């Protein structure tokens, strides 16, 4: 039960959404954009989110788009993870989505919400990072297309009233060999101790991580080490781990030593598997 009252609007266009946002901001309502609601409802209940105005973006067509537009896969921000899991348009994304939360939650959690939410893991972003996806952002001046690497730096760097409308992925990225692995404290379902998504592109392995450090990331210097042909498998992995420039998490889900242990096992497996594919 949410211990406060708030206004709710479900506009049918992004420009309408933006103007509601601006008005409510002036009114001191601390507005938030709303999609699947799994995070907002559960956090508001615990008083971890305060708002007097909720703007539901599920009413605008761009957010509900899903399909191919020429050689681009268009995914609206309001598409639930369960749908991405079923429709295997981007198999790596389907696989990653399959391991986020449980099925009941996945029917509600949207890709936009998962990527832009407050819970740090944001695992749905991993395939987008390795696939060099493009973000479509609603702004006062219309839609903007920006490479994900310019928008996402651990968290989505979009300043409200702008918000994420869509993500787009090039077809060729969806056809590359891919792998994804997730380890939790114990259960199949749970927050990641380490979650990773990788593809084998022409230029080598691309890989992104969640659960390992505070925020999800893709690191070119880690990839460089993993693709270093002059090194043995073990030393590649070792040097790759050393290249992780942010501290490895140490919390009640797992110690950092255990995370490193899991990570090095997973990296060895991934390199081996990709090697088998490419041979």
């Amino acid at each position, binding site marked *: *039960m*949410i*211990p*406060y009252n708030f206004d709710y609007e479900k506009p049918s266009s992004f420009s309408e959404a933006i103007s509601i946002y601006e008005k409510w901001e002036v009114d001191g309502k601390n507005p938030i954009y709303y999609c699947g609601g799994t995070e907002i409802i559960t956090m508001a209940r*615990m*008083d971890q989110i305060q708002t007097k105005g909720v703007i539901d973006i599920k009413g605008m067509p761009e957010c509900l788009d899903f399909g191919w537009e020429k050689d681009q896969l268009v995914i609206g921000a309001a598409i639930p993870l369960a749908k991405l899991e079923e429709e295997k348009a981007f198999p790596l994304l389907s696989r990653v989505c399959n391991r986020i939360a449980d099925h009941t939650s996945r029917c509600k959690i949207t890709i936009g919400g998962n990527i832009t939410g407050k819970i740090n893991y944001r695992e749905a972003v991993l395939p987008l990072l390795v696939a060099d996806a493009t973000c479509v952002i609603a702004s006062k001046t219309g839609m903007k297309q920006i490479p994900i690497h310019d928008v996402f730096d651990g968290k989505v760097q979009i300043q409200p009233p702008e918000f994420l409308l869509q993500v787009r992925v090039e077809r060729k990225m969806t056809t590359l060999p891919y792998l994804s692995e997730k*380890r939790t*404290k*114990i*259960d*199949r*379902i*749970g*927050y990641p*101790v380490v979650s990773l998504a990788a593809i084998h592109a022409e230029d080598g392995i691309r890989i992104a991580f969640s659960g390992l450090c505070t925020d999800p990331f893709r690191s070119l210097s880690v990839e460089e080490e993993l693709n270093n042909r002059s090194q043995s498998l073990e030393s590649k992995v070792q040097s790759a781990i050393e290249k992780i420039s942010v501290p490895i998490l140490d919390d*009640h*889900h*797992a*110690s950092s030593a*255990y995370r490193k*242990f*899991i990570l090095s*096992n997973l990296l060895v497996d991934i390199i081996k598997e990709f090697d088998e594919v490419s041979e």
Partner: protein
Amino acid sequence: MDVIGKSIPRIEAEDKVTGRAKYTADFSSPGMLHAKLLTSPHAHARIVKIDTTEAKKAPGVRAIVTGQDIPIRVGPHIQGRPLLAIEKVRHHGEPVALVVADSEYQAKAACKMIKVEYEAIPMVLSAADALKVNPSLVHPNLASYSKDNKVHPEINTNVANRTKIRKGSMEDGWKQSEIIVESSFFFPQSDHAAMETRCATAEIFPNGVVEILTASQAPYDVKKLIHDHFFVPLEKVHVKVPLVGGGFGGKAAVQLELLAYIASRAVNGKKVKLANSREEDFMTSPTHIGLDAKVKMGATKTGQIMAAEITFYFIGGAYSDEGVDISKAAALNCTGPYKIDNVWCDSLCLFTNHTYATSFRGYAHIELTFPIERTIDLMAQKLQMDPIDFRLKNVIRPGDTTPSCAELTQSNIGDVFQCLNRAKALIHWEEGQKTVVENERIKVKGVSCFWKTSTSSTNASSGAVITFNKDGSINLSCGVVEIGQGTKTTLAQILAQRFKMDMGKIHVMMDVNTEVNPEHWKTVASSSTYMVGNAVLRAAEDAIQQICRLASSVLLCNPEDIDVAEGKAYLKSNPKKSLYLKDLVHGYQYQNGNAIGGQVIGRGSFIMRHLTHIDPSTGKGIPGPSWTVGAQAVEVIFDPKTYTYELKKAVSVIDLGKVLNLMGATGQVMGGMSMGLGFATREGFTYNGEGQVLDTQFRTYKMMRYGEQPEYVVEFIETPQIDGPYGARGVGEHGTIGIAPALANALSLAVEVPLNKLPLTPETIWQTKRGESNDSL
């Protein structure tokens, strides 16, 4: 007409599976108010100031109550717990203030407006913290609390209770021991995690009647406590309990009912509901106790156990509640089902700055069985004996005595030997305890044995009343709460069997209402079928005697010439000469209109016999009426590369005396095993450095999921308990008890290091293998 042993579906099953069954929180009424608790963010802190000025002005607020408004202390053995914190808080989540408002969200919003100033006090967050020299004291005023004379708190320490077992001669025991094993064990507090969170409503009527509706396993305790603490005459306290969505011991503790009463009192007796959120159910209401234990055991080279020295340090949390009694029960049964003549045990319940603990399925036995059964495996390993052979050599039998020197008979204990042999066959022990399977994974098996007695009050009693409808069908009234265990279905079977009548003709009143139902001690300790079942049989006997007496004057014979079956009273010598029960149970009417007899009302009662208090210096005494025993086995596939494992199979063989409802008993045991696996593999609270509970939601407090269940195999052995209904023994908790050590025994074999700490997550196994320390002591 045999219904005993049949798999009769639960009589409330249809209501449950169609979603029509109602639980406490489902009941609302117009004008009902809502209460919410403000709880402590600190584990141990002095309350400097509480300012409710702003909160009182908040919309919808009717009343705010704080600790100083209710200067009483409660608790089942030591009365040390204030209903709302007084002077200081002793655990994260402790209630500090209560707000009553028109709606729940308003009460919740107002709680946030209460300003509380705290001053930190050094915390006691482990057994080691509690026991150190000059410790921070959780209860500096322990001496001033009233208590019953069966607990032994140690003033100016954090020891809430100490129970001693001194059996035989330790000197002789060690002298005769050729090998000795010594080890330490640990598991943290965890939760009952019942599907239904706790909830209570209270209303005080102008005539002084207090009506409580609650999700409780102990409605008669609620009644007594409202009387004891608020001086309401007993006959004016009416406690009602609808179906309860899982108790597991956690709802035998009385907490929200007293708070709901105060809330109602604060608003002039209006009806007030107080419902826990999941977070409150985890941190504010009592939990499953934690344990630090040390076991030293000695045996001859041929594998005869000669001595055991056992120390239990129970992590009881901020208040003693049932923790002190759990620590006692653990001492009295400390060896598990093994014959050991020389036993020394000190069992301590410690005050710590955790949520206070209460009864949990298995009551002391799930706790004691983990260290004991791990030690038994370590002993077998040291002796290079097969762990099953070693157990079989030492299992306890009729003629032996328990650690508290209670005598075991053919009736009061089951057959551990037979249970273990059957479990051995069912887990296919002959295939080997450890085998390598595909991808270098290892298949391992572990076993354990267990026993459990009920540790009931020595005068615990139950009643049953049966009345008849005019068609001859029967109504049964008793005080057992339906918590999902299916006892009421079993009681209907017992009654149907005695009347040799169709089950469909028995109606059991599902809800409990202390105003009308005869008292049953508490719905705990796997003892309802034993206690109330006996009361029901006596009520049936009483009614049958009345029926036979009446029928005898119609059929012109002696009452002894008559028996009852299939809805009739008939002449034994000529069953054709019979009368329908419907023509007797509301009085018999002759053709001329004259009537004799009257309504038949059967009454039956039961009281525990021969239980004794416990000698404080030696632990001698008789704790319970019987010991249900069993053997369990677990098979897992372990991956030495990732330290993950897959649960493949879990086996329980339990001697329950007599199977009354096969599927019912099997379901109870299977559910218990699943709960045991949750406890063994993942459940357990973690805390931050401030002593705050980190896992207050199912997001991170992990439980077994449906897809992770192994294959369950449940079988029963039937060694009758002579004084049990149709020979039955309790079986509600037992599936839970030995699962954790069976799993730990299997995994210890797989990783080749002793795993003596729960829960067994891949990380904890990995850490142990790397040689990190297990013990907080």
